[in-house]
């Protein structure tokens, strides 16, 4: 019976769920019959539009999930991808469509605005929503009942990035005395910039923040911004940028012959493949302070191996891992719930406790607000076109190069 209702277009949303819950309560539906219901996951990503680069990269985790999870003893599942076209309006419409098409659980959506637009639908319909990437604190602070997030909030990322820096300075016994912050004026960059001065004080950092320079996300030329940063006389650069800006900034630093002790970023861009591929040697030694995976964990090794089979020339990236983990969380919840009935599934999601994970956290688990509070950053360094974890040492697979090599000493 559940099979039939799963394919029947839903009307109003409530009836089927009530029916399923009622049926389960009366014991009309036996467990094996429900377990036979294939879990249908709606994966909401910006596959086109200005965020397409990251959306399409995230989707690679879905391919890995399809290849790895069945071997881990999970039932077969189905993933349907919905494209937000990088617009909140479409994100919401696509969430409606996926729920209408019978998805039991939604995953998404990278961009916080689109995530929140899609979450409205999950809340309305009572469908569990797993945020795989999406850092706005509001996602888990707005009292949503159907949301869990396996990604840190921006304050968590930022706070952790300072701990990573301190660990790096301690390990290499070298620290800059001054830094300058150069950041894009988008959602993420602004929050980071606002939080930085307080955290420098809170963590008693060995350096002084000399200046914070904001630039427009659509800037096509960053020579001025880099010159200003250089002119501040800072010993190291902390930056938040998108991948295109990261390339422009690097080129300008080389051209303007500015060799700081290091470039550190608590954001994306500098660890993206186009950056590594286009910048070559000049892209080396940059440090990204980001949520990452622990390359030494067994699951990570398994994912690396599988990724090498799918696309030999593309290294496993945290974008893939987080999408994978979100699907992992979903199928794990189904296994424990034994039903796709939303309330039971959501209850199982809240009780998630996965220790065999890949990201740097002791376990995948959620607090009362649905937030995984244990998820941590790593300090990831670009080395010969590959990304290597250098801090924390417990998750490291390479030694840090710090201070970074001058531009003209990179044979």
């Amino acid at each position, binding site marked *: 019976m559940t099979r039939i209702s799963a394919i029947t277009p839903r009307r109003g949303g409530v009836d089927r769920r009530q029916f399923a819950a009622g049926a389960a309560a009366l014991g009309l539906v036996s467990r094996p019959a429900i377990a036979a219901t294939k879990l249908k996951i709606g994966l909401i990503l910006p596959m086109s539009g200005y965020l397409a680069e990251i959306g399409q990269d995230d989707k690679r985790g879905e391919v890995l999930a399809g290849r790895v999870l069945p071997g881990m003893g999970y039932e077969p599942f189905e993933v349907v991808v919905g494209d937000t076209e990088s617009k909140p309006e479409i994100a919401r419409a696509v969430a409606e469509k996926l729920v209408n098409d019978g998805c039991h659980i939604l995953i998404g959506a990278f961009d916080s605005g689109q995530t929140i637009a899609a979450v409205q639908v999950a809340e309305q319909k009572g469908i569990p929503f797993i945020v795989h990437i999406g850092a706005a604190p509001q996602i888990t602070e707005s009292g949503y009942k159907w949301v869990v997030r396996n990604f840190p909030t921006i304050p968590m990322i930022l706070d952790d990035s300072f701990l990573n820096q301190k660990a790096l300075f301690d390990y290499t016994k070298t620290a800059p005395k001054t830094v300058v912050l150069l950041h894009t004026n988008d959602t993420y960059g602004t929050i980071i910039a606002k939080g930085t001065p307080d955290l420098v004080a809170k963590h008693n950092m060995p350096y002084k923040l000399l200046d914070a320079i904001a630039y427009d996300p659509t800037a096509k030329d960053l020579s001025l911004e880099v010159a200003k940063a250089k002119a501040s006389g800072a010993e190291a650069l902390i930056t938040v940028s998108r991948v295109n800006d990261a390339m422009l900034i690097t080129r300008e630093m080389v051209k303007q*012959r500015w060799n700081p002790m290091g470039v550190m970023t608590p954001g994306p861009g500098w660890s993206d493949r186009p950056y590594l591929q*286009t910048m070559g040697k000049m892209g080396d030694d940059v440090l990204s302070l980001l949520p990452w995976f622990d390359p030494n964990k067994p699951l990570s090794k398994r994912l690396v191996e599988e990724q090498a089979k799918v696309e030999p020339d593309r290294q496993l990236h945290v974008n893939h891992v987080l999408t994978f983990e979100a699907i992992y969380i979903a199928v794990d919840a189904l296994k424990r719930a034994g039903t796709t009935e939303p309330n039971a599934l959501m209850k199982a999601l809240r009780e998630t406790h996965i220790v065999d994970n890949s990201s740097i956290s002791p376990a995948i688990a959620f607090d009362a607000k649905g937030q995984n509070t244990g998820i941590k950053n790593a300090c990831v360094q670009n080395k010969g076109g590959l990304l290597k974890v250098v801090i924390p040492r417990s998750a490291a697979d390479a030694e840090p190069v710090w201070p970074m090599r001058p531009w003209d000493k990179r044979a």
Partner: protein
Amino acid sequence: MPATYANILISGALAGLIYGLSALGLSVIFGVVRIVNFAHGEMMVGAMFLTTLMVNALGLDPLLCLPVVAAVLFVFGYLLQRFLIERVAHLPDHMQFLLMAALATTLTAAWLMIFGPETRGVRLSYGYDSYEVGPLILDKTRVFAAAAALVVAGLLFAFFRWSATGKAIRACGDNHTGALVVGLDVRKLYALTFGIGAMCLGAAGAIMVMLIDTQPYLGPQYTLLAFVIVILGGLGSMAGAMLGGLVIGFSEALAGVLFQPSLKSAFSFALLIVILLVRPQGLLGKRA
């Protein structure tokens, strides 16, 4: 410090010349065909992808690819006018706008499907070189790029000034009916003009890859930038487009030095609004 900022102003002006060349494409088309090309940026992104592809596959310098890319864009522009835009020439502005916006959507989607979403850049052997002139450091790619932009613009000026076809096109632009009366093949001249305009932004695109990396969604930014420049210089005025580019490149750099860099594009839009209000025909434009 003054030398640093002198550097910045100069590099802003150099970049402005390339923006000017791209805007020239928009201006030539508007000046004659009276169509505002809202797919301007998207067409240029196509040229940038083509150049990147050639540079990375054949190991050529972008400036050597320029003639090929410009030629491809010329053909594209010619055919576009002949088979599509010609049919909306008599329609109201908003219809033309919608057609061009639809074209822009289709082109962007095509770039995404063909080239994928990832940013693509080129590596140049001289990519990090610079000239030292006294206290100034001039970035080599920018100098090359600006020089190329000037050469292309110069050739175009010469064409419109001295060649028979160029004169005929100008006649069309000045007086459509008159051109018909004296027996000019206006349809063909319009198509040629659109082709030349597209060629301009093809050349600009080929040059642009020396400064910026390409991805499918850059289009609207360049369309807006070109609008700002041509209105500043005078919609339809060729010299105005180059001057507008120079002014924008220079003033954005200046705004960045004086205020927060994040406000520099607000500065260009403010400049645009002021110009539209005080001198709607632009710096070098004739009153319509």
